[in-house]
């Protein structure tokens, strides 16, 4: 057996992934659960399995921990095919925490964590002081040492989940598989648990975790594998995997993907199901209002452009994140003619212009190029002369834009939305 502690290396010097699955297919009871799923996790990486319910995340983990044999495909741990290893050998390399465990007998927390030492004990061995140190250390790390002598059956779901993680740590394996490790945890323990996983990865462990919270997954995973209907829909760094199109494909849901304020990870905001607004819109304005307008409209399905905005403004940041063309100028430099012309051109081509936040004098001509305007009420919105519709908040923008598209004011729109035709009279 080769030495795994220093990290596996191939014969040609290429690093072998610590854990890999190639073309895994599983069908249970005649239903295909996984089709040709491949993934790999390098030494020290945290790989997140994300995807809708029933996508095959748990099944993938069962295959990876060799408690389910795939119909085809190979799982390798440090290069060795897992089906060639005994249960004991697998358990010395791969530890896993199940989503929930059935415990109908009253073991104490310590006894439950001690079971994690099973892979390292021979049939006639008894746990020695070294084993007890590992158990104590594992309980400390997941913050369950305080109730070491309580019965596992008396714990809450979240506490029990942490006990399972402690058991997996006591196994001292290079690979850790976690099935929804945070599903029952409060936000504090969820973050602590994933911080711990990240620390373990820094210490050289390899972790694969099924995580249903996309934002936690984005924040703590080096790579994500997006599963849907038993297939890998996308794989790679969170930024590449968590995009509106891939999420629409996998979850059949509209989402808005922006950046998490405190980290550079993507932030996914799910949006309610609506008919997409099939219009092109040019957004004029700055600040949170304009950025919100861009986000809402993109999420609603509109094709959006923006400008002119000073670089560094919230709207100037948001638009490129969402792949929207935006005309920017350096801050405090004034608007040059070229920029104004480009923005005016975009506004003229759009079905309507949305005015949100502080527009500034320089943008007056851009707004004037529009043949329809929807304005978000608020300070800084200029008293422009062109006919327009006013909405109270950015949340109402998609409906207002969609309403314009019909050209016929619907009776229920009349309260808030004044149509251009009414104004013309």
């Amino acid at each position, binding site marked *: 057996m080769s030495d795994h502690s220093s990290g596996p290396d191939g014969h040609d010097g290429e690093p072998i992934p610590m854990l890999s699955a190639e073309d895994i297919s599983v069908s249970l009871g005649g239903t295909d659960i996984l089709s040709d799923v491949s993934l790999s996790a390098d030494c020290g990486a945290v790989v997140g399995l994300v995807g809708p319910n029933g996508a095959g995340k748990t099944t993938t983990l069962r295959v990876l921990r*060799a408690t389910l044999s795939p119909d085809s495909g190979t799982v390798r741990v440090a290069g060795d095919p897992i089906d060639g290893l005994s249960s*004991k050998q697998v*358990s010395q390399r791969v530890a896993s925490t199940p989503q929930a465990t059935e415990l109908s007998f009253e*073991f*104490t927390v310590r006894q439950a964590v001690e*079971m994690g030492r099973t892979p390292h004990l021979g049939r006639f061995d008894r746990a020695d002081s070294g084993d007890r140190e590992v158990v104590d250390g594992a309980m400390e790390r997941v913050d369950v040492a305080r109730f070491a002598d309580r019965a596992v059956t008396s714990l809450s779901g979240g506490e029990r989940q942490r006990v399972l993680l402690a058991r997996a740590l006591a196994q001292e394996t290079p690979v850790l598989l976690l099935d929804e490790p945070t599903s029952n945890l409060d936000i504090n323990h969820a973050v602590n648990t994933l911080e711990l996983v990240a620390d373990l990865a820094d210490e050289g462990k390899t972790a694969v975790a099924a995580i249903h919270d996309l934002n936690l997954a984005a924040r703590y995973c080096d790579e994500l594998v997006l599963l849907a209907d038993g297939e890998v829909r996308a794989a790679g760094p969170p930024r590449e995997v968590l995009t509106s199109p891939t999420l629409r494909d996998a979850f059949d849901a509209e989402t808005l993907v922006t950046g998490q304020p405190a980290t550079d990870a993507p932030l996914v905001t799910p949006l309610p199901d609506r008919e997409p607004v099939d219009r092109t819109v040019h957004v004029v304005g700055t600040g949170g209002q304009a950025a919100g307008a861009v986000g809402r409209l993109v999420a609603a399905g509109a094709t959006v452009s923006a400008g002119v905005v000073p670089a560094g403004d919230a709207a100037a940041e948001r638009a490129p994140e969402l792949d929207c063309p935006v005309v920017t100028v350096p801050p405090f430099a004034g608007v040059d003619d070229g920029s104004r012309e480009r923005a005016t051109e975009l506004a003229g081509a759009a079905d309507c212009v949305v005015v949100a936040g502080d527009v500034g004098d320089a943008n007056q001509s851009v707004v004037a190029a529009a043949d329809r305007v929807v304005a978000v009420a608020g300070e800084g919105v200029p008293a422009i002369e062109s006919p327009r519709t006013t909405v109270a908040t950015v949340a109402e923008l998609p409906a207002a834009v969609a309403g314009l598209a019909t050209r016929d004011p619907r009776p229920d729109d009349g309260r808030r939305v004044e149509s251009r035709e009414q104004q013309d009279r």
Partner: protein
Amino acid sequence: MRTHRRTAVWSLALSALLAAVVTVSAGIGPVWIPPADVAQVLLNALVVPTAVEVTGAAVDVTTRPVFRFRVSPIQQQIVMGIRLPRILLAAVVGFALAAAGTIMQGIFRNPMADPSIIGVSSGAAVGAVGFIVVGASLPFGLGLRAAAFAGALVAAFGVYLIATEGGRTPVATLLLAGVAVQTFLGAVVSFLLLNAGESIRRALFWLMGHLKGAAWPEVWSSLALVAVPFALLLVYARDLNVMLLGEEDAQSLGIEVERTKRILLALASLATAAGVAVAGIIGFVGLIVPHVMRLLVGPDHRILLPTSALAGASFLVATDTLARSGSAEVPVGIVTAALGAPFFLYLLRKREVHEL
């Protein structure tokens, strides 16, 4: 280490209890013998080897008694010749049923499982009742007990085969197959009883479980049939702990689940069959004793298995003493159920057994 010491303390205490129960029980009967006299008779039976002589194939062991108390020959005959074989057989049977019940509850992860859950008792019943009713003579001069023993093992193995597919034996399937086979074998027993004629009383007496007429050879043979599986089960106690986490978890902790399950089922069934073959069907010992001991010592099988077995031995010796000390002998199976069920219900109300 802590577990080891607790196991030793509990086992010693329960062994002392068993010795006390045996001593008192051996004094009880038509002739009352004070426990002190019984103790002297029992201590006189202790011997130490003094010389071993090997002559060809035969090994001659010369022994010397440790104690030489003066006891009355009549008391000596009553205790050693009549009462002790039956008492020791009760101890062995109780030991086996409680140990097997502990194992089955662990395998099925269900505190309601009993030693006969995969059809051992039903199989033994068909073997025994068939032997009594048909009156057939078996080859090699084997009798009623061999028929019951064989029936028990055939039934258990049959249930195992029915529930196994592709090398896997899911416990849920095993449980259902066990129930179905028990029902079927129950029908066979009923049919045999309908046609039993003269022998129906003997068949019913067997079915209710009794230890009447026990003699030394049965004590030694059943002791051997119980001691070997029990020693092996002790080796697997830690694996069984891990199996309580669920089979997938156990496998990911390095347990060869299917192989372990197979071994545990075989050993527990063997011990149960050895007990049932000599004593008939004695209910409740294998269900209630592990239960009570789990309340006292916790679910760790390294301590639960030996303590349950010892407590089961004491329990059956005590109940069999009651069964034989009335004016007419009552089958001990009736006594265990009549005492065990109310006690169990008391625990159920008091200690919330359903949460185990």
